[in-house]
C-alpha cells in the first residue's frame, strides 16, 4: 500500500523551545549562515517556531506555531517550477530535487507558507564541525532551493529495513528529527493511509485545523489547538 505521510502539531503542547529547529539543522546538514547574513534574511530554517502575541503588555499570552513544509497535495510550488525540481513523489511528499534546480526561486514565491529557502552562498562549516555532517543527506550548493523533506532519509531507511524483514513499516517507527527531539511530544508523524496510526487519529480530532486551509493547498500537516 502506498504511504501518505503526514504530521500533527499540537499547539497546546508546544513550548516554543526550538529543539526541533536545532535537531532539523543537525539532521539535514542545513548551513548556519552567521549573524550578518541571518540579519539579511538568509537564515535557512526548514522548521521555524512562529511567535504570536495576544493581549497588551504586561497581560500577554504567547502563542507558538511550528511551521515546516506542509507537504501540500495541491502544492502551488510544483506547477510553477520550470524544470520539475519541485515535484510530487510516490509517497505524496513535495520532493525538491537539488540537481534539477536552477534557482528561479519561483516555487518560494508561490508557496503561501514561505517554507522554501534559497542557498545564497556555498555552505561552510568551521572545523571540526564539518565532521558532524549527516552522510545520508546531500549538502546543497549555492543557487538552489531547499526545504523540509519530512526527513526523507529516515523514511527511506525505515522502508528498506521493513522490506528486509518482510513486514510493513510500523506506526511510530519513523521519527523525523523534529518529532524525535520534541520534549513536549507536540509533533506526531505517521502514515495517513493507515487508519490505525496515531497521526490519522489526531487528524480526526475536533481541535484540528490546517494552516491557510482556504487557499486550497490541501496540506498534510494538521494543527491541533
Amino acid at each position: 500500500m502506498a504511504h501518505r505521510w503526514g504530521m500533527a502539531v499540537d499547539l497546546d503542547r508546544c513550548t516554543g523551545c526550538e529543539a526541533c529547529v536545532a535537531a532539523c539543522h543537525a539532521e539535514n546538514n542545513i548551513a548556519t549562515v552567521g549573524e550578518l547574513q541571518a540579519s539579511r534574511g538568509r537564515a535557512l530554517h526548514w522548521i521555524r517556531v512562529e511567535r504570536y502575541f495576544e493581549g497588551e503588555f504586561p497581560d500577554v499570552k504567547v502563542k507558538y506555531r511550528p511551521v515546516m513544509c506542509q507537504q501540500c497535495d495541491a502544492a502551488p510550488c510544483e506547477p510553477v517550477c520550470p524544470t520539475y525540481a519541485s515535484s510530487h513523489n510516490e509517497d505524496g511528499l513535495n520532493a525538491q530535487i537539488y540537481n534539477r534546480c536552477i534557482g528561479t526561486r519561483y516555487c518560494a514565491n508561490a508557496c503561501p507558507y514561505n517554507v522554501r529557502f534559497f542557498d545564497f552562498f556555498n555552505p561552510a562549516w568551521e572545523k571540526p564541525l564539518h565532521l558532524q555532517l549527516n552522510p545520508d543527506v546531500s549538502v546543497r550548493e549555492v543557487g538552489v532551493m531547499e526545504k523540509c523533506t519530512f526527513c526523507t532519509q529516515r523514511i527511506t531507511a525505515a522502508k528498506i529495513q521493513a522490506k528486509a524483514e518482510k513486514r510493513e513499516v510500523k506506526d511510530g517507527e519513523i521519527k523525523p528529527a523534529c518529532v524525535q527531539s520534541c520534549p513536549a511530544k507536540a509533533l506526531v508523524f505517521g502514515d495517513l493511509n493507515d487508519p490505525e496510526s496515531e497521526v490519522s487519529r489526531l487528524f480526526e480530532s475536533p481541535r484540528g485545523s490546517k494552516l491557510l486551509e482556504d487557499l486550497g493547498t490541501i496540506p498534510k500537516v494538521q494543527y491541533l489547538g
Partner: protein
Amino acid sequence: MAINEQRLTADLLKPLQRTSAVWFLWVALLLGVVGAGAVGFGYQLWQGFGITGIKWPIYWGFFITNFVFWIGISHAGTLISAILRMVQAEWRRPVTRCAEVITAFALMIGGLFPIIHLGKPWLFFWLVPYPSSRMIWPNFRSPLVWDFFAISTYLTGSLLFLFLPMIPDFAIVRDHSSGIRKKIYGLLALGWRGTTMQWHRLETAMQIMAVAIIPVAVSVHTIVSFDFSMAPVPMWHSTIFGPYFVAGAIFSGIAGLILAMATLRKFLHLEEYLKPIHFENLAKLLLTMSLLWGYFTFNERLTVWYGNGAAEVNSFLATQKGSFAPLYWTMVICNFVVPMILLGIRQLRTMSTMVIASLTVCVGMWLERFLIVVPSLGHKYLPYSWSYYRPRPNEIFITVATFAAMMLLYTLFAKFVPIISIWEMKAGEHQPSEAGAERVHAVAEGRLEETHA
C-alpha cells in the same frame, strides 16, 4: 516637396559616413558602464547570489523588475510601428525604424534578466525543450517556460520585422560606399536590385509580419504578467494583470520611443525629418495610454480595497500608506499627474515638456513594476514572515548598466544603419499613382514582364 532625394539620402547617410571624436568618447563611456554591470554579474557568480539584496521571503527584486520593465519598453516598437503601418498613418515613415530597433534591443536586454536572476545561470538552457539524453523536458505548466517561448518568438519576429524594411536601405548604403563596407552592406542587402517583383515581395512580407507581430506582442506581456498572476500571492493573483501589463508596456514603450527620437533629433541633426508633428502625435498616444494606465490602476486598487481580503489588504496598505507609499505616490505623479498636466494642456505641450513627461513615465513605469514585484512578496499570508527589501550595489550596477547597454546598442545601430528609413521617406514623397499600383499587381500576378525600377 520639401526635401529633394539627393539631400535626403545625403542627410540620412551622414551619421554612417562621418564619426566625431565625441562619438568615440560617448561609446567608451557607455562601454565602461556596461562593463561595470558585467563585473557586478561576474562577482555575483563568483561569490554567490547572496551579494544581492534578495532575501527570504522576497526572492524577486530588482532583476525581475528590470525584466518586466525592459520587456515593456520593447512594446514601443514593433507593436506601434505595426499598427501605424497597418492603418497607413503617413506620419509613421520617419518613426518606424527608431521604434523597431528599441524593440529588438529592449528584448535582448530584458531577456537577459531571467538568466541573470537564476541561482545557476549556466543552466538556463534547461528551459529549452531539447531531447536530452535522459529525456527530461521542461515543465510546460510553468509560466517561466511560457515566458521562454513567448520571448523567443517575439524576438525572432521583431528582428525579422526590423530587418525586412532595412533591405532596400542596405542597398542604398551599398551603392554609396566602397571597399569592405560595400561588401558587408551588399551581403546584408541580400542582392536587392529594386525590381518591381522585389518591391512587391517586400511589401507582402512586411504586411504579413505587421499582422503577425501584433498578437505576438500582446501575448508576450500577457505571459509576463502570468508569471505573477498564476501564483497565489496577495495582489498578484489577479485577472486584470494581462491587459494591465500590456497597457503599461505600450505606455512605457511610447515614452521610450519619444526619448530615443528626441535624442536622435538633437545629436544627428534630424530636425527636418523628425518634426514636431511626430512628437505631437506620439505625445497624444502617450496621453491616451496614461489615461488607460490610470484607469487600470484605479480598477486594481479599488477592487482590492473594497474586497478587503485579509491578505490582499496588507499588501495594499503597504503600498498605499506604508513603507512603499513614497514610491507609490511618486509613481502616480510620474505616470498620471505629470502627463495629464504637461501633455493634456495644449499650451504646455512643447518639445521639452514632452521629453520631460516621457522621462517621468519611464521612471514611473519602472516603479510600477517594482511595486508589483516586491511589496506582495514581503506581505504574504503569515505575518511572521513579513519583510522588506533593499537592493545592494551589484543589483544597482547591473540595473544602470542595462540603461547604458540600451544607449550603447542604439548608438552603434545609428552608426551603421540609417536610423530613418530612406526608402520609406522617398516612398512617402512619391505616393504611387493608381496606374503604378495596378502595374505592381500586374507584375505580381504574372500578367506583365518585370522591369528594373
